């Protein structure tokens, strides 16, 4: 049992990458939920996207997904950049209006 575990540890495979991606995903979520700075939230989102990307690439390596996984990863990177651009534009807009980018202070809409 123990040996098996060590063997498993010693030979990184799909699951290892998936674990890393899972951790990144969780950390990304954590950042998104806890950080009060909008930009930090954005960074958390990037982390989430990257964790998914890692999945795609890992799957394309280990399973029959083949190059389509790479393709998706590429597209996701581009989409992420587009989204980041728009998000930052919106953040700038927010900053211009509110003079803050603290998410908590931007909560006039509620109920």
């Amino acid at each position: 049992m123990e040996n098996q575990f060590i063997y498993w540890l010693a030979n990184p495979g799909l699951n290892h990458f998936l674990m890393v991606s899972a951790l990144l995903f969780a950390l990304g979520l954590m950042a998104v939920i806890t950080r009060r700075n909008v930009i930090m939230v954005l960074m958390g989102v990037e982390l989430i996207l990257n964790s998914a990307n890692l999945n795609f690439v890992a799957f394309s390596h280990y399973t029959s997904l083949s190059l389509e996984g790479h393709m998706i990863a590429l597209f996701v990177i581009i989409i992420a950049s587009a989204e980041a651009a728009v998000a930052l534009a919106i953040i700038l807009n927010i900053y211009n209006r509110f003079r803050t980018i603290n998410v908590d202070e931007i909560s006039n809409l509620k109920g």
Partner: protein
Amino acid sequence: MNLFAIIFYLFAIVTIGSAVIMVFSKNIVHSAFALMFSLIGLAVFYVLLYADFVAATQLVVYVGGILILILFGVMLTTQGIPEKLEVLIINVWPSAILSSLIAVILFFVFTNTEWNLIQVVERTEVVPELGMLLISKFLLPFQAIGVLLLIAIIGAMLMSTQSKRLNN
């Protein structure tokens, strides 16, 4: 313990460690740089997984593009005032519980899954194949992402430019 494993663990630590730093660092600039390291670590993973083109793109677009963008954002919104770089983290515990729950769930799921693994192909020539795919099967997304970028540009312009009439 082969090289692959060593590299994997090394960069796994780098990636996750910098991600942790990113999440918990009080200074936003530190966070941004931590994110950069994390992304670089991922790029290394991509290389490990024989996805060098993706790795390159990751470096170019993410590290070179998005991260710079983010830093610009930080600068623009803090306007160089150091206090503003210090950012709050609150509700750590509830969210930590939530996030770790998610992680546990995913771990649980992954370890309980028999993946439909295939014999790992050691690809050497990935880029030409990707190129072929891009103009055959993925032609439509390829075109569509062009439109997406156009829209993003329009949107970003619209959002970031100062309107003449602001007083409302």
